């Protein structure tokens, strides 16, 4: 096939940029990269890198898609040169900047009303060895940050600073989770914007719309926004 012997070896290089087809790049970020960017967690480095690329206003970039450990950059060859984009991004990655601090930008702080009557409340409380009341109190007193979206229109993966949160996903995903379900998985909180299958643990429900096609923008929560859940009775 023409690929060298080392091609399939695990690459040791950090902050790799690789092509993803002919119109996209994917950037891998690990713990060492997080250190280099002055961030405690990989997800913070992902957002810092994403912010730095956005700030550079490189012509031709159509999408920046941050995720847990990667940033995907899509390029429109009619508006930018993929070669130039790749070089420019390499430069940015070689020069970590704490100036990519997203909290400097104006963000919205959402207060989302929740009735904590989810099916998984007791099981999750049991996992954390706390009472249901204590679990709810902890969820509502945490300030969550929208790290990235992706699985469905209007869905945001919410993260926080407290490493206490580490909720196992359900062994068997449910075929249908109601719209507005407020749920946990791993270190994340999230609200299901529409009915869909899912494997997250459901704590409760909100009537607040996460996604409205007629609104601009249609998604309630944007990347970098803050979220506080408020218990409703």
């Amino acid at each position: 096939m023409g690929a060298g012997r080392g091609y399939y070896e695990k690459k040791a290089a950090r902050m790799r940029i690789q092509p993803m087809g002919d119109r996209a790049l994917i950037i891998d970020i690990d713990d060492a990269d997080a250190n280099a960017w002055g961030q405690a967690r990989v997800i913070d480095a992902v957002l810092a890198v994403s912010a730095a690329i956005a700030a550079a206003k490189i012509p031709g970039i159509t999408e920046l898609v941050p995720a847990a450990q990667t940033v995907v950059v899509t390029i429109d060859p009619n508006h930018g040169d993929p070669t130039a984009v790749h070089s420019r991004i390499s430069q940015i990655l070689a020069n970590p900047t704490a100036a990519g601090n997203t909290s400097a930008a104006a963000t919205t702080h959402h207060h989302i009303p929740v009735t904590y009557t989810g099916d998984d409340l007791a099981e999750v409380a049991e996992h954390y060895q706390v009472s249901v009341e204590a679990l709810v109190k902890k969820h509502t007193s945490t300030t969550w940050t929208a790290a990235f979206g992706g699985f469905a229109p209007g869905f945001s993966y919410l993260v926080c600073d407290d490493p206490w949160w580490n909720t196992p996903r359900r062994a068997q995903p449910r075929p249908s989770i109601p719209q507005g379900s407020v749920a946990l998985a791993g270190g994340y909180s999230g609200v299901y914007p529409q009915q869909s299958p899912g494997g997250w643990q459901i704590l409760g429900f909100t009537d607040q719309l996460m996604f409205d096609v007629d609104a601009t923008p249609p998604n309630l929560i944007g990347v970098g926004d803050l979220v506080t859940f408020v218990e409703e009775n």
Partner: protein
Amino acid sequence: MSDYPSFTILATGPQALIEDRGRPGHAATGISASGHFDRLSAARANHAVGNTPDAPLIESLFGGLSFTTNCDTYMIATGVLATVSVRHADGTSKNHTTNDVIRLFAGDQVTLSAPEYGLRAYVAVRGAFDVPQVVGSSAFDVMSTLGPKPLSAGQQLAIETTGRFIHDPDWLPLVSHLVPLWKPTHHHILKVIPGPRDYWFTTEAIQNLFTQTFTVNSSSNRVGVRLQAAIPLQRRQERIGKELASEGMVRGCIQVPPDGNPVIFGPDHPVTGGYPVIGVLTSFSCDHSGQLQPGDTVQLKPQPAGRSQQAVGR
């Protein structure tokens, strides 16, 4: 019959959707770019009838689309090889083929046959279809269901009269017939740029990727083309049972779930995914992949990434 220029849909075949160039720029909020599957054929269709490239048109899956027109106009159907029969109000009829620029007169009834080769026909009318936009586009996304709903029998499709999708008001057709873009075949060669997660797979799997013949599954759709692998693609031992943290996806990504049968992402692909991507189709092959009939066979060939796209170490 209404006063405004329109087509009345009589039949839709398996599926007929409004598509345009999609809604890029919202991936970070989980909205896929969507848009035409075979972008080249759609562009050619619009160009052939003197429309701008962003004019909404019909993406017809496997033919069976039939409609009448209440106005004189021009149309084309391209992307597949099929018959386009036109029956006039006086009872006479004429058989055209796809790739013909067809002059239509008020009262004509047009029927697109199931394609002999290819899957999705792009049907453009001079001036474009007047349809609403959702999140900046008239494209229908089958996964999120954003956009104007799939066409149904009895529906009236208005034709744009304001001219906003027209290049030149004095336009007349430059050509009467387009050269077909795709080779008429049921065995296809698609080009793949390897990676980014090719290192999840055994050396043998990578070889098999590029030597075996895959079969297109009938469960394929705009979300993804599902291929049946004669030899399922195996992960390296240390990767078996492991999960990949969800990462951004693009059209053309060849995702390999644990069963080893690859899925090639189409325009309505999920924005993020957790199965390793062994390679990504070139843009040209992405468009080609929209024309694979269920049961067709596919071989994949490697295309090295350009010089600009080599992996960069630090």
